[in-house]
């Protein structure tokens, strides 16, 4: 259940921090909204999501990160964007502001930028250590980011990430945007999860305006979300194997991925299904031709995929690379509230589709695959099992797809409204929180990608592994740079 937002004093804020630190609450998001900061938390036992607001005093708020490390990067981002200080934080280095903007605190005071000092990477000391700086421009067709490895021979002693290179200022572009423009921006926060973002954004708008999308639209949204998950999981399974030099799997899953995208293109007029989900419903109805196409696609997947699973399972040279590589500790995924395959491969039993049970998933039957080894192999298997679940979900959706309208008009009632949306993207839960003004435009919108709480765990996963296994570990996480950098 999503509870209404509540204003808290320093005492209430402190109590929430203590509960985060003792593990009875999970941090979902922490963001600025000057002069306030908001914190979204999840009570996994009760299934409740709460948003707490603290009004900053002299531009400061009690640091969450001081007691609960997952909040450190969000706090650094809040400082860069708003100039709000987390009092007592052990890490006050910039995060998204790399020193190239003309303004400081672009979402608040917009002061002229000052020349930044050199960025201080964490110290690594010891004999025979060497550093390997990588990026922001990487060797493959991937997004930019900087990785600083400290290695002893082949073994990674510490990895430190520096992100923010693709920061586009999405949250500032959101402010004052019409719902139509804002939905487009939300759908371009992380292109690979465009459906999940548009979905969560639509949920948040509908909550704020207190309207409901028609039943047919709800099912079509889930259909698109599962197609997106299938395409991404197929792509990832192949790409991970490719990073272990097993190109055949990459070629085979690449065919399946392309077939899914082509079906999506026919059904929803866009290969990635961008802008297909809109606040109030969906933009395009599924025709009988589309349904037939999806059924034909499924016959093909059901014929080919089991053989590929067998191929993965029976190739010893591949398993040699993935088993016991890049282990993420169960304790870390719990503390960081890591979602998606990163969390579920290390035993965190959370999936927004089941735990938050947003429509229509409350009426669909599916399992949430879980493993506890936490290695690259486990993250591959979670994807394989989830792809199978997605196939089953889509078949259920097609069987019960209700007839009727696909979109309702958005009526703004001249009042302020707030809403929160949470959907399960292929890599984990996406949270969108927004406030709509009386003029029907966005006043503030925060988008939180699952990657925020997965990136830091990649730093722990690579520790003690060899440098050559980093691409494998990184691909098994497949975190979003754009979704994180905003």
């Amino acid at each position: 259940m999503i509870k209404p937002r509540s204003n808290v004093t320093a005492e209430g804020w402190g109590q929430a921090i203590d509960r985060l630190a003792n593990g009875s609450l999970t941090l979902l998001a922490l963001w600025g909204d000057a002069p306030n900061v908001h914190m979204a938390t999840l009570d996994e036992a009760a299934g409740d999501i709460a948003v707490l607001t603290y009004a900053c005093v002299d531009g400061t708020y009690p640091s969450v990160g001081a007691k609960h490390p997952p909040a450190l990067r969000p706090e650094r981002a809040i400082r860069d964007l708003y100039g709000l200080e987390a009092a007592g934080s052990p890490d006050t280095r910039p995060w998204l502001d790399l020193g190239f903007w003309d303004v400081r605190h672009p979402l608040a005071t917009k002061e002229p930028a000052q020349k930044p000092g050199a960025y201080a990477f964490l110290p690594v000391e010891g004999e025979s250590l060497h550093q390997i700086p990588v990026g922001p421009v990487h060797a493959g067709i991937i997004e930019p980011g900087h990785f600083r490895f400290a290695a002893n021979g082949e073994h990674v002693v510490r990895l430190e990430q520096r992100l923010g290179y693709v920061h586009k200022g999405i949250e500032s572009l959101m402010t004052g945007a019409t719902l139509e423009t804002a939905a487009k921006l939300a759908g371009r926060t992380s292109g690979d999860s465009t459906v999940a973002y548009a979905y969560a954004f639509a949920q948040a708008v509908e909550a704020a305006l207190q309207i409901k999308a028609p039943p047919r639209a709800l099912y079509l949204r889930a259909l698109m979300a599962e197609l997106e998950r299938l395409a991404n999981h197929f792509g990832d399974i192949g790409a991970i194997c490719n990073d272990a030099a097993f190109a055949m799997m990459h070629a085979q899953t690449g065919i399946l991925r392309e077939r899914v995208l082509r079906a999506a293109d026919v059904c929803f007029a866009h290969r990635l299904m961008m802008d297909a989900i809109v606040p109030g419903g969906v933009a395009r109805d599924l025709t009988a031709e589309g349904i037939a196409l999806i059924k034909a696609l499924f016959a093909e997947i059901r014929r080919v995929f089991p053989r590929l699973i067998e191929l993965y399972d029976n190739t010893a040279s591949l398993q040699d690379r993935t088993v016991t590589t890049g282990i993420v500790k169960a304790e870390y995924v719990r503390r960081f509230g890591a979602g998606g395959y990163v969390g579920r491969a290390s035993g965190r039993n959370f999936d927004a589709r089941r735990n938050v049970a947003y429509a229509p998933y409350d009426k669909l039957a599916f399992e949430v695959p879980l493993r506890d080894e936490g290695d690259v192999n486990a993250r591959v298997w979670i994807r394989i099992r989830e792809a199978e679940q997605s196939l089953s979900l889509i078949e259920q959706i097609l069987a019960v797809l209700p007839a009727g309208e696909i979109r309702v008009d958005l009526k703004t009632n001249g009042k302020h409204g707030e809403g929160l949306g949470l959907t399960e993207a292929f890599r984990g839960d996406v949270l969108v929180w927004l406030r709509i003004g009386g003029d029907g435009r966005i006043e503030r919108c925060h988008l939180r990608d699952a990657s925020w709480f997965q990136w830091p765990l990649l730093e722990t996963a690579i520790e003690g592994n060899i440098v050559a296994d980093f691409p494998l570990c990184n691909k098994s996480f497949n975190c979003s740079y754009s979704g994180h950098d905003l």
Partner: protein
Amino acid sequence: MRRTLLESFAHGPLTEAAPPPDRAGLAELAQSVERAARAKLGRSLSIRQVDAGSCNGCELEIHALNNAFYDLERLGLHFVASPRHADVLMVTGPVTKNMREALERTYNATPDPKWVIAVGGCAADGGVFAGSYAVAGGVKDVVPVDLTIPGCPPSPKALLAGLLALLQTAS
């Protein structure tokens, strides 16, 4: 593995005929490519992809160029890991201010003769991200651009048509 391999032989290639070169792209290129430079390259181009701030949608479709349906390498086009090995930079995204210097340095590291392709609506003019404090603009605002492939993101077919236009002009 044997079954998968055998079946691959049995069903024949999935690779589809390449689309005709993009006409608009050809016209744009005719103005920007020098004949002397073209002769040096032959029918082979090495491409370095640079994400200068995209949402990663364009990267997904550029990746798709390597799948069995489009099979880019059959046309003599291939992706390389370093700008120092590249003839072509395929740049995606609005250029963020945080990536501007990295893009300039990548461009300067690419040996002449070189071409730059701006891929996608954001690379053309900043797209939906234009006007942000964090965005420097389209690719042409930072480095010289020879060809723009529109789309959000451009489909693999559109990408292929653009690349073929470049190849035709450059060969």
